[in-house]
């Protein structure tokens, strides 16, 4: 269990680094799919079966297909190296490391190893999620359906031939 978590956590981090290190958008997209699939395994290990399946179907399936489709539609090739702001190249990595150290410090200070005992395993199947969704979260559910409708209309209007 723990070993699987570390394997897929390492895979997710390596693939995430590959997402930002690749200069060709298609390679970034494929690495991102790898991140999403390894996160789905991590969700399974954490007892969220429904979300793991949704992650693979909706994220890795639908959203990333949209990304790859647009990349191929626009024929996005290798990006040119940037010539601007030399100082950012030297200042960036230490700032990123400082940001990471700050967040990790906060996490480990708040939750030292072995402090948080997990609760009893939940029933996180589709039935339990559905009950909660249609009982306690009815209004957000309806609002997201309106959001999806607006997004579809907006995408059609924006991608039209003449704006």
């Amino acid at each position: 269990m723990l070993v699987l978590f570390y394997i897929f956590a390492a895979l997710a981090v390596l693939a995430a680094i590959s997402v930002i290190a690749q200069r060709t958008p298609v390679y970034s997209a494929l690495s991102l799919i790898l991140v999403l699939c390894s996160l789905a395994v991590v969700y399974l290990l954490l007892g969220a079966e429904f979300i793991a399946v949704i992650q693979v179907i909706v994220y890795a399936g639908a959203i990333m297909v949209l990304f790859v489709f647009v990349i191929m539609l626009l024929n996005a090739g290798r990006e040119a190296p940037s010539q601007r702001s030399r100082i950012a190249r030297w200042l960036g990595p230490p700032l990123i490391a400082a940001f990471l150290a700050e967040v990790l410090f906060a996490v480990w200070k708040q939750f030292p190893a072995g402090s948080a005992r997990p609760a009893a395993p939940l029933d996180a199947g589709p039935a339990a999620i559905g009950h909660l969704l249609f009982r306690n979260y009815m209004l957000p559910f309806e609002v997201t359906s309106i959001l999806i409708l607006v997004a579809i209309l907006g995408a059609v209007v924006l991608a039209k031939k003449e704006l």
Partner: protein
Amino acid sequence: MVPLAHVLSLSAALFVIGAAGFVIRKNIITVFMCIELMLNAVNLAFIGFSRYLGNLDGQLFVFFVIVVAAAEAAVGLAIIIALYRNRNSLNIEELDSMKM
């Protein structure tokens, strides 16, 4: 059982990598993918807390985040297509017409 601190550390690492990519990449599609990476890092934190608090609400929040991410991807990619049609470029350094 996976310790909560390790789950949150993975989440933090993914978020920081996404934030770094958001700043260093020049292709607008890759920048957009870094936003998805950061959303996933937050989802992971939600799932971890849901497991440790024994509360299903966190998983529902992840559900809503995924729905909003799908809507965001549809609109964002449509904007990118419209932008490419008008400017013929995906480089964010050339998209500076709003600059003073």
